[in-house]
């Protein structure tokens, strides 16, 4: 059998144009992970259900396992690596919120959640709890039981609102506006040791123990 035919594509990933020759059937998730070695985008099902592979395409969350790399030709793609501020040390406010609220355990679903939340908060910077639950209800997590992820999103919205970052890219602004440095030295969020994982200062839902 002949070697497989390839197509030339230009993927604009995290603000950089990347040239690739890929077979037409190559999934965007595989091109990102194995050709560009951006392994922060994970693959949990390859059939569009788990959301681990979520990236932003022109600012809107998409499942990179449901797309061929060639269909992304010329589009702006943001992966979790593109969200992290350039200095390589600091975390993006959404990432910081997940750490503050213990919104991850094994971390496999996490980049997908973070990109979903980036899209969600760009659309709606002040989501209420129901909107958050709805917004992340297309992503599976097998570890956390989700409550701390909900708290993380609330916290992320707060950090972004407090000028700890700027709103996330919208579909119309070129998609890579997500590299904002965050101020140094932000105090860690106090943790509510006997509660539902929501930081104590943002928890009105009463998730406290009886003690």
């Amino acid at each position, binding site marked *: *059998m002949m*070697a*497989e035919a390839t197509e030339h594509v230009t993927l604009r990933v995290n603000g950089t144009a990347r040239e690739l020759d890929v077979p037409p*059937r190559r999934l965007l998730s595989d091109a990102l*992970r*194995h050709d560009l*070695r*951006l*392994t*922060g*985008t*994970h*693959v*949990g099902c*390859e*059939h569009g*259900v*788990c959301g*681990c592979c979520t990236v932003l395409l022109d600012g809107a969350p998409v499942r990179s396992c449901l797309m061929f790399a060639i269909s992304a030709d010329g589009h702006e793609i943001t992966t*979790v690596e593109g969200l*992290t501020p350039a200095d390589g040390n600091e*975390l993006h406010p959404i*990432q910081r919120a*997940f*750490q*503050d609220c*213990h919104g*991850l*355990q*094994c*971390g*496999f*679903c996490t*980049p997908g959640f973070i990109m979903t939340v980036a899209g969600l908060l760009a659309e709606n910077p002040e989501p209420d709890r129901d909107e958050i*639950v*709805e917004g*992340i*209800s*297309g*992503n*599976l997590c*097998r*570890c*956390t*039981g*989700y*409550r*701390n*992820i*909900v708290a993380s999103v609330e916290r992320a919205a707060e950090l972004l609102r407090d000028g700890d970052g700027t709103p996330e890219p919208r579909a119309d602004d070129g998609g890579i506006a997500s590299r904002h440095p965050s101020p140094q030295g932000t105090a860690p969020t106090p*943790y509510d*040791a*006997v*509660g*539902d*994982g929501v930081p104590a200062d943002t928890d009105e*839902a009463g*998730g406290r*123990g*009886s003690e």
Partner: protein
Amino acid sequence: MTTKMFGEAISRREDPRLLRGDGRYLDDLGHDAYAAAFVRSPHAHARVNEIDVSGALDVDGLVAIYTYDDLPGRLGDPLPLLIPHPSLTAPRTGHALAAEVVRHVGEPVAMVVATDRYVAEDAAEKIIVTYDPLPAVVGVAAAASGDEVVHDDMDDNVAANFVQEVGDVDGALADAPHRLDLRWEIERSASMPLEGRGVYARWDADDGRLRVYTSTQTSTSVRAVIAAVFDIADVHVEVIAPDVGGGFGVKIMHPWPEELLVPWAAMTLGREVKWTEDRREHFVASAHERGQIHDVTVGYDDDGRILALDVRFLHDNGAYTPYGLIVPIITSTQLPGPYKLPNYRVEFTSLYTNTVIVTPYRGAGRPQAVFSMERTVDAIAGDLGLDRTDVRAVNFVQPDEFPHDLGLIFQDGRPAIYDSGDFPESLRKLKALVDWEGFDERRQQAESEGRRIGIGLACYVEGTGVGPYEGAHVHVETSGRVMVSTGLTTQGQGHETAFAQIVATELGVPIEQVHVTTGDTRRFGYAVGTFASRAAVMSGNAIALAARAVNEKARVVAARALEANPEDLEIADGIVRVKGSPDDRIPLNQVAVLSNPLRYSFSEAAQAATQFSMPSDPEDPPVREGEEPGLESKAYYSPPRSTFANGMHAVVVEIDPDSAQVRVLDYAVVHDCGNMINPRIVEGQIHGGVAQGIGGALYERMAYDEHGQLLNASFMDFLMPYASEVPQVRTDHLETPSPLNPLGIKGAGEAGVIPGAAAIASAIEDATGLQITRMPLSPDELFRLQRSDGNARLAPVGALGTSVDDEPDDEQGGAP
């Protein structure tokens, strides 16, 4: 920065790496490796007739195709029986590639290696295997009948039959004033981590060494089996668990066929080879759990005190028994829960079926046990018209009755003896947390709004921290870095943080200086693995002991430099100082320098340890008798037996009268895992477990048809809870320290999932008046139950007894 970190709810140190996308999971490694793909059986039971690979040979990029006939030496033998047991009288294990017969859909028949996964799958598709189908045995009823057999060298499908008894059950049953016969059923489910399995192997021909990365819960045992099968020296095999995207039990099973075949291909081809499991493979070729039917006879008095309990259950072990009888043994020994059962008999029969193997999934036999026990207690309360919490209270082991010996042999081959707990206090806390006493008012309020709600609870005891042992190495480098390693693995439990907290506290160093490595045989070769809620108990204590030894050694070395007594020294913030005289001090990194007498120096700091600088007694050798160079130590922790954690969950549900959807309104957890290293991590473990418990109660099941085809082998059809299905979880902790280990801790990893199905069943029963005997329970099943029971309260409030005609059309029900 204080160094007293034990017990602090600090945020996790592994998070920044994982949040940035810098985690290294199995498939993030080896981008240039050859890829393996597998041809798997489409039949549940068949004889393999012929494997025709000719069509695949001209696929561009194909490297090799292997079938059973190609497997050399021990690789062609049956896979190991990991945990033998005297009552496992008919153990059977599969082969790395099917020898003659396939016994479940998904069993590997051929391995293809190619330059790329797409190509490997192209070639696999072109391999034509012809089979002679054989009758499939599916479900415990078919297996028990023995009409057809899974293994044709057996007369029936019975892998094992095991009875344990304490007291005189028959006598006590005969004398009991009340008696009930009950049947409880739990379906199959599975761990279903979001990262599947995967193996990546490199053979270094120059060094004669094999390195294997595998997404496992036990790297040391994978190493041992690879070394044995291929007859390589242990030290020439390195096995590493990289970041692992969840395990929940399924990754403790080993060696998977792929864990032997991929390294073998790497050695044979002299190239890196990688296999990453896809989701369908995970459904049909890894392992499942749950799947039991219990028949219970219980005798009790007027107060609901249990006088005798007789349990017979059937356990579906799937096609093979590589993991032995661990799951049903745990079920049978954990069934008593927090109750005193003076007369208890449990008998199980473990049966072969033509389905995927059964190995532990978080909870490991306990969710079934708790469902059986707690449903039984609810039935007693219902029969006597007593409050469900009162019946529990009269049966509790009391706080002054510890240690409490069940008279049973636990999964570690040791007596099951509860070490500590305070069940009445836990129940009091739970009732307060969920407002048990106020619920009637809440129910009336809901009914006045036309809503149907119910409350339920369930209690459990969980044997955690099973042996035999774990070990740890703690090393203070001359840079001041504290390198910690332990052999067991990590799948999201936050060990980099929790173990560092222990070291920071025990050694007296800032946590920022502590670096923890798990699951890497290059760093620590002796270990058992991460399962059975054992990592914190086992490695936590081993690490504490190693850190204490380093602390002691540091004080001895520093005492010489400070001309003080080691007993007069203390270590805090990485400084060794004389108590009460804080100016007499020496930093720990300098102590590390002094601990290693040098001939050669590379830095100013190190000069202090060279032979012309070290003050010493000319009669003493530089390394004194009984001492070793370097500020490091190794320690092992091996407990006499398991330590028993416990907890109680209460849940409030609402049933939609139209759709029979069950919505969880409140979920309350009281949990006692002894001293907590990091309450935030414990809390997170509970949340995750609760979500899996809800999944097990309402959604998750493996839908096999009678031919042994798994009908829902995708995330589209196997329903797991999303954020929308999981309620807020309220928790309260009791900390009754374990007397069995230095840190007083008990395991917490599985607790959240264990009583979920039982508590939710109790609540649905309370809301509807229907006896809930099986889990999971989908809305259409609830509807059918309601239809067959005219007294049920499922119908809209005010329309009791009228029939509801609309069946919900959602087949699987309750779907997120």
